């Protein structure tokens, strides 16, 4: 099922469940501006807004990302993925990082969509739309709160961000999410994509780097019909 690279420390494998977090990079919320107070949103988000990247989206290092014929331009969603090591239920912020097995690079690919109200799952759940990098153990990463994230398209820097700009830090996010849903060993929680996300077309070679986690390389190719 998983096309991603080896994962050679506890819990010894990914579960195949990947959650993404919407609007958790300051730049992403700022990009919405006062729209958060207008219809259809009416007010800014309060609880973490999560979504599922289902198993058909999962891919690994070097795998091609299919670009659908009806959506020739895709967004590269570079983000940090937290790999869960122990069941996380109602964890406190101060203890949250103890439940983490490690971290990996996530490319949370989307079809660009202007409205966050009720987008079709066609925008995020297409085959191959979630390449994952190899995981790095928590102990080798240390503090996940200041990791630089860089996106290169065809070798040129296209975007950069940092986990220092998360509205909910990794431990705060784990605490707030685990208030209403338990995360299990091997689950991945992607912490949020910065705006503006670089857009690419078929033929683009995309490389995402995150400090201490190495790089994730994927080529975007026209979908085979």
């Amino acid at each position, binding site marked *: 099922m998983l096309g991603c690279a080896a994962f050679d420390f506890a819990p010894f494998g990914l*579960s195949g*469940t990947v*959650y993404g977090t*919407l*609007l958790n990079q300051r730049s992403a919320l700022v990009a919405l501006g006062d729209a958060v107070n207008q219809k*259809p*949103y*009416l*007010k800014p*988000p*309060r*609880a*973490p*807004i*999560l*979504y*599922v990247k*289902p*198993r*058909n*989206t999962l891919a690994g290092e070097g795998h091609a990302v299919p670009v*659908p014929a009806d959506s020739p331009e895709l967004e590269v969603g570079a983000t940090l993925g937290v790999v869960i090591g122990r069941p996380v*239920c*109602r964890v406190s912020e101060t203890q949250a990082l103890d439940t983490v097995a490690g971290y990996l690079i996530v490319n949370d690919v989307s079809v660009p969509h202007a409205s*966050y*109200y*009720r*987008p*079709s*799952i*066609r925008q995020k*759940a*297409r*085959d191959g739309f979630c390449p994952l990098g190899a995981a790095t153990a928590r102990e080798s990463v240390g503090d996940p709160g200041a990791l630089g994230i860089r996106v290169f398209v065809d070798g040129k820097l296209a975007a950069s961000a940092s986990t220092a700009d998360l509205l909910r830090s990794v431990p705060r996010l784990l605490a707030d999410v685990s208030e*209403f*849903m*338990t*995360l*299990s060993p091997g*689950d991945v929680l992607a912490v949020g994509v910065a705006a503006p996300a670089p857009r690419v077309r078929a033929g683009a070679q995309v490389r995402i780097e995150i400090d201490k986690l190495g790089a994730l390389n994927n080529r975007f190719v026209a979908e085979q019909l």
Partner: protein
Amino acid sequence: MRARVAYSGAVHEAVPHALPDGRTGVRLTDGRVLAEEAVVWLPPFQVGTIIALGLNYADHAKELAFGAQEEPLAFLKGPGSLIGHRGQTRRPADATFMHYECELAVVIGSTAKKVPAVRAFEHVAGYCIANDYTIRDYLENYYRPNLRVKNRDGGTVLGPWFVPASAVPDPGNLNLSTSVNGRRTQSGNTRDLIFTIPYLIEYLSSFMSLSAGDVILTGTPEGVVNVAAGDEVVCEIDGLGRLINHIVADEVFGR
């Protein structure tokens, strides 16, 4: 039809079995016959991706004041929300409107990619009942319906049985209903689905490959009412059985 149950230290496949007192119990593969209450019921198959439909019955859409749709309102749920028959679902003390949703669950049996509607049933392994709980208090207007509403622990009840497609000749004409503490509160028929099972498989498989074990929760008809701690909620669908669930308060979970 078959179930997955835990009993006496192991997980077993089980089938319905008539008990001497006339009730229906279960028979484990190893021959043991037990009352329904003697085993722990698990979701009846290995569940992959969970795809749920919002507002897929015209009457329920009207109930919630939604207009006509161009495209199915599909959303995804995670495996952590799953529980089986006779399980407990927590009602948080601060919720004011928590409701069940009785739904026909369609279980995919083989990889489906860009499948036309006329061939859709070739990819259906079978069916079961789903009760897809919602807490409307937590609805926010971003990526609706957000997971705090729809992906809570114990909020997706599946079972009791996995029923093979061969035993369900017309899934497009099944009565479904819900009772709370013995009182009928919801009833409908799958003939009133806005987007039919073949349409949904064509639609979903046009952009995402479906695999064996993936499940489509096809939506709920009108008649959703608030439930309270202590309530017994029973969802029934013709030929698929009765799916029982109990609502419990925060205290049960040490909150």
